[in-house]
Each structure stands twice: as structure tokens, then as C-alpha cells.
């Protein structure tokens, strides 16, 4: 075994051409420039920091900015066309996409009467991305250990319902949060049991769990409606970090939010750390990638999967509480409105990685917030199209940037000891 057989690596500094991507970016950039000349002459985009510097606002020349951004996008495309080092491709496409998105944003906010209230919008976007973060993190924990969790929607419903119920019974919002987590966890326990012990098709279980949760919460809602004091709204206080909250932009966005936002950001970091830096994470990833390998090293695959799925339910249940406690709302039938499925998509967009999940959730929260803001400001674009924005953007991001996302190899495959 004297000689190593390492194959040749491609020199990642050698230029390579990317005809298709390059053409797309170049054409889009040129289109932006043309659009700027056609429609944007003399327009301005007003930007305000509406929470800290309440009196100031800046009028940015839309035409010039879109022109520059369009040129930047076109340049990224041109660079790809003439050839760029492999390791710079990501940079170029990120620049292209960022320029594109920013210029559209400037353009959208150049309409009459619209002001880009940076602080409200960003703070709102961060808050709106929370359910996706919790749902997708729950999905990450499940699927990293090899169990498909398509029932996030159901876990949301259980959490939303139980959170309010427990808060009402105990009078404590924190008890409500705990109750939501336990409810989410109880419903994933069924998934865990059926997936590991009875080896039922996990997608089927997920679909059933959604249906069960919908039926159960709606049914219980009707039952409890007959009595008073089971479904009153409770609210989570906003936590303000003293003077930090007065820093422009960062303050209102990061230091003046509800518990959910801090919990969400912390959980992203925590789950990331647990997955990639601890014994538990190593074993969890091994069990999701190659359970037989983990088994052969003495890891009890099905027990680990079981408890991981149960633990993931805590996260999804907490995310469910966002709908009620987080928004100071009472429970309502089917109030999660399909966002559990969006969380599933966010998980895939984030490539089963907590940091990716954060990015995906922020994209979704931000576009949702922008759509609502523009609609409220009386944009000329029909409201329905604005509401489509987050979905359309996700579609474009997935198709254009993410491409093939690879699930953990053993995701959804039940494990029997002795499998190869």
C-alpha cells in the first residue's frame, strides 16, 4: 500500500465558459437597462428608517441605481460567457441574482406613494420567516436521521391549538409554549413509532398525520367552543434590548422582537452546532446517510431515529405556537393555511442544513413582507400577483440557483438490522 491513488484534480483557476447561465444573466441585465431607459427616467425610490430615525428619509435616484445594477448583472453574465475560474462561478451568480433582486426592489418602490420603510419591512420579514425556520428545522432533524417528515403542517396545527389551550388553562404563556412543543412532539411520536417499529411508508404517515391533526384540532375546537375560556388569545411580549434597540436598522430588526425570533435564530445555531459538532449530530447524520454503517459501529439506529423524530416534534410544535401565541391570536380551524408545506419546501431549499434553512426562510419571509407592503401601499400590480411573489421567487431560486438538492441517502428508508 505504498502508492496513493489520488486522481487528478481539475485546476479550479482555469477559466471555463458557462454559456447558458451567462446568456441568461447577460440578457436579464440588458433588459433591466432597457427598462430603466424606458420607464424609470426621473423616478426616485424613497428609503426610510422608520423606527429609529423617524424624521429622515432618503430619495435615491431609481434610474441610476437600476442602471448600475443592470450593468452589474449583465457583467456577471458576460464574465460567465467569456469564461471564469470554476471557483468564481458561485460569486458571479450570487452577484447576478443579488443585482437582479435589488433592482427589482428599487423599481417596485419607485411607484407613487411607496416608501421602503427598511426597519419595519426587515423586522416584519424576520418575524414572518419564523414558522418556516421552526418547521424546516424540525424537518431537518427528522430527515437527517432518515425519516421523512411531511407532516409539519399537522404538527403546526397541534402546536397552535395546544399552545393556546394550555395557556388558557394555566394562565401562563410559557406553559402554553411548553404545551405546544409537547403536542408537536406527541404527534411526531406517532410518526416515529410507525416509521421505525411498524415500518410504514413515511410519506403516507405524514399525509395521514396532517389529516388527523386537521380533524382533531377542528373537532376539539368545536368541542371547546361550547365553553368559555379555552381559546382566548395570549400574547408573547416584545423583548427590547435597551439601547441596542435604538441602533438604526439592526436595532429594530434584531433587538426589538418577540421571543420567537430569538428562539428561532438561536435554534438555527443550536441545531447546526448539534448536527455538525457533537456526538449526537455525527450519529444522527450517519443514521440518515448509511444506517447499516452506524449500526455496525454500535449505534442503535431505530432508537436514535425514534427519539430524534420525537425531539423534532418539539421544534415543529413551537413553530405552531407562532401562529397563535406568536401573533396574539386565538386558534382557528386550519389556521396554518398550508405553511407547513412551505416549511417543507424551505427545508429542501436549505438543502437539509440549518444555515440553508435560515436563508430559505428569510427569502420567503422577506418576499411575503414585501408583497404585503406593496399591496398595502397601493401598488398597481394586482394583489394576487404580489401574493404569488414568495412562491414564484422560491420556484426561481430552486430552479435557477439550487438545482439538484440531495436528500440524506437513507431518507425515508426503514432500517432493519442486517440490511446491507
Amino acid at each position, binding site marked *: 500500500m505504498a502508492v496513493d491513488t489520488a486522481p487528478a484534480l481539475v485546476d479550479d483557476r482555469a477559466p471555463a465558459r458557462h454559456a447558458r447561465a451567462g446568456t441568461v444573466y447577460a440578457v436579464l441585465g440588458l433588459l433591466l437597462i432597457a427598462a430603466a431607459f424606458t420607464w424609470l427616467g426621473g423616478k426616485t425610490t424613497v428609503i426610510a428608517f*422608520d423606527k429609529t430615525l423617524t424624521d429622515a428619509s432618503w430619495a435615491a435616484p431609481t434610474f441610476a441605481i437600476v442602471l448600475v445594477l443592470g450593468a452589474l448583472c449583465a457583467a456577471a453574465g458576460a464574465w460567465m460567457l467569456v469564461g471564469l475560474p470554476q471557483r468564481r462561478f458561485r460569486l458571479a451568480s450570487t452577484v447576478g441574482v443579488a443585482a437582479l433582486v435589488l433592482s427589482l426592489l428599487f423599481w417596485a418602490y419607485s411607484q407613487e406613494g411607496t*416608501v421602503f*420603510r427598511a426597519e*419595519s*419591512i426587515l423586522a*416584519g420579514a424576520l*418575524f*414572518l420567516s419564523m414558522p418556516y425556520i421552526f418547521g424546516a428545522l424540525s424537518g431537518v432533524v427528522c430527515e437527517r436521521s432518515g425519516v421523512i417528515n411531511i407532516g409539519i403542517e399537522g404538527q403546526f396545527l397541534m402546536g397552535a391549538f395546544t399552545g393556546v389551550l394550555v395557556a388558557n388553562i394555566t394562565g401562563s404563556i410559557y406553559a402554553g409554549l411548553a404545551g405546544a412543543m409537547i403536542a408537536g412532539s406527541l404527534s411526531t411520536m406517532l410518526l416515529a413509532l410507525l416509521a421505525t417499529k411498524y415500518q410504514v411508508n413515511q410519506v403516507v404517515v405524514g399525509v395521514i398525520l396532517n389529516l388527523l391533526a386537521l380533524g382533531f384540532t377542528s373537532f376539539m375546537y*368545536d368541542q371547546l*367552543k361550547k365553553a368559555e375560556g379555552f381559546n*382566548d*388569545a395570549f*400574547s408573547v411580549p*416584545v423583548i427590547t434590548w435597551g439601547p441596542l434597540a435604538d441602533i438604526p436598522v439592526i436595532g429594530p430588526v434584531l433587538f426589538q422582537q418577540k421571543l420567537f425570533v430569538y428562539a428561532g435564530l438561536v435554534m438555527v445555531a443550536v441545531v447546526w452546532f448539534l448536527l455538525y459538532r457533537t456526538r449526537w449530530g455525527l450519529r444522527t447524520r450517519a443514521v440518515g446517510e448509511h444506517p447499516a454503517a452506524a449500526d455496525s459501529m454500535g449505534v442503535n439506529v431505530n432508537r436514535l431515529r425514534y427519539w430524534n423524530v420525537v425531539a423534532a416534534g418539539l421544534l415543529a410544535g413551537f413553530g405552531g405556537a407562532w*401562529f397563535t401565541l406568536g*401573533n*396574539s*391570536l*386565538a386558534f*382557528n*380551524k*386550519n*389556521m396554518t*393555511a398550508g405553511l407547513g408545506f412551505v416549511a417543507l419546501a424551505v427545508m429542501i431549499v436549505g438543502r437539509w442544513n440549518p444555515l440553508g434553512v435560515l436563508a430559505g426562510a428569510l427569502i420567503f419571509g422577506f418576499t*411575503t*413582507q414585501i408583497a*404585503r*407592503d406593496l*399591496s*398595502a*401601499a*397601493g401598488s398597481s400590480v*394586482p*394583489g*394576487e400577483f404580489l*401574493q404569488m411573489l414568495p412562491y414564484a421567487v422560491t420556484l426561481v431560486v430552486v430552479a435557477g440557483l439550487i438545482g439538484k438538492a440531495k436528500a440524506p441517502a437513507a431518507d425515508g428508508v426503514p432500517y432493519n438490522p442486517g440490511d446491507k
Partner: protein
Amino acid sequence: ACGDAPTDSGSDNANASFLACMVTDSGGIDDKSFNESAWAGMEAAKAENDDIDVKYKESSNTDDYDPNLQASVDDGCDFIVGVGGLMAANVTTAAQANEGIGFAIVDGSPSDAEGNPVETSNVYSIQFDTAQSAFLAGYVAAAQTQTGTVATWGGMQIPPVTIFMDGFAEGIAKHNEDKGTDVQLLGWDEAAQTGTFLNSFEDAAAGKSTSDTFISQGADILFPVAGPAGIGALTAAEEAGDAVNAIWVDTDGYESTEYGSKLITSAEKGLAQAVQDAVQAAYDDKAGNGTYVGTLANGGVALAPFHDFDAAVSDETKAEVEALTQQIIDGTLVVESPASPAAS
């Protein structure tokens, strides 16, 4: 089919001779909106009269209207109330097929499938000119705003919703005209008939974030016209502190929601009362093919009391509202909306 089992709703009128039934629109019996109000009217009728029993069937969409109406006929109902203008043709058809039974249609009038008016002998029509109460609400909002900006948003762009928004917009315009103010209304452009809609009556979380957006754009009075999703506006107002308040629709929100302290007033629609009256009239065999249009004049629509805001609203404003009410009742002031009963 039901044998000896006790029926739902703790019925004590089990041996009543008159059975009044209601078919809901989508949204269900507990939609905190017109289905729920109509059902409250049904129950009130039963409570008032020992000889009346009531029952309902929920529709999940328009396709359920016909089977639900038919099932109500089969159940031996003596009077069948269809809730929602979309059901008008279905109720009309059922009424024509069952001349022996009385029918009522809420927010609509007898019509054929194409929407053309139809003469019937047994369909009672219940409608409301809520633009009138919304007009007063708009006037009050314009008087009370501190920022000079108020906002409305709807669940969906349908007549029972936009009629409120139209009236609200006109009330603000009236205040601007009479008092020389320049109060801006966000979320609804009456002339263009475009505005902000959630496309949901259930998604209160979206309602809240939409309301937050309006608040960040300077609105300090919110007027959500979206059934339960409208609660989102109230929680948004609550979280925004003392500066932001709201006005409720359909019912007196001071009674029907947990957020009385945030509600300046409500643009009421006396649906429950109208339904109760209709059931009683049917019991008395007096409903027939009459039409009821709730207005400020007959008390079918009204501006709710100011409750906690009684002190905050100036006497001057109260007097002006009083006067405007009188003008509308007199017909000297006409609040027009493309969605008004007269126009539909």
C-alpha cells in the same frame, strides 16, 4: 333517521311543530361572520318561541348548496334560510320545486342561474345596506385619526365586503369635504375599486402582518372587513400600543371580540335580528316573498356605541354623526356603493 337519540344543541324544543333550517355558506357555522350571526338569529328565534326548533347544514363550497337545501327539504324543514348571495339561484330553484315550504335568502334576492330576478311566492329576501353604517364609521375614523391616515383591508373582493369599504371611503371623503381635513385612506380605492385583500377570511396571521404594514405606513385606525381574519388587525392594534385603534364590522365588536378596549365603534349589520324576525314571520305564516333591506332607517344597520371611547369622541363629532344619520334616513344624503342592494 334519528331515533331516540337526543339531538344537538341541548334541544329543549324537541317537540316543536315548526322546524327552521339554515344552510351556511362556506366558512361554516362558526365563521365569526355572517354565518355565525345568522345562526345566532336562528337560535334566538328558537329561544323566543317554544314551538320552533332549528337546525343547520354547513356548505364547504357552492357545490354543496343544492344537496344541503335538498337535505333540509327531506328533513321536513318548514322554513329554510340560505345564507349568502351566491346561493340565491339555488334557493330560488329549491323554492320553486317545493312551493309548500318557505325559504329565505340572506344578502341576495330570488334569481335564476343567470342572476336575473325571478318572481317567487315563497322566497323571503334579507339584504343590508351596510354602506350606510360604514359611512358613519368612516366619518368617525376621519374625525378620530391623529396621523391623518386610516386603513381598511378586506378578506376577499366580494360585494358584502366592498360595500363596507365603499361606505367607509365615502364617510372619510365627507369628513374631508365638510371639515377641510385631508385624511388618507389606505387599502381601498373606491373609484378604481381596487385595494388590499388577503384572499382569505381565516388567515388571521396574515391579517395581522398586513395590519402591521399599514401601521408602519402611518395608519392609526384600522377597518378590517374580513370576518375572523380581521382579528389580526385587532391584535396588531393592541401590540402597537395606545396610538392605534380599530373599527369592527358586522357585529358590535365590543361584545363579540376580546378587544373591546381597542374598538372605537363598529359598523353593525343586524343580521341576527333580521333572521330571527324572518323565522318568526315564517312561523306566523307572514314571510312569503317579502323583502327586507336593513338600513339606518329601520335599524337593520347601525353604528355601534363608542363604549370605552365615549369620552374620546368629541361631542361635536357625535352631533355630526347624529345629523348625518338623520340625513341618510331622510334620503337627503345617499351613500352609494356598486355593491348596494339597490344596485345588485
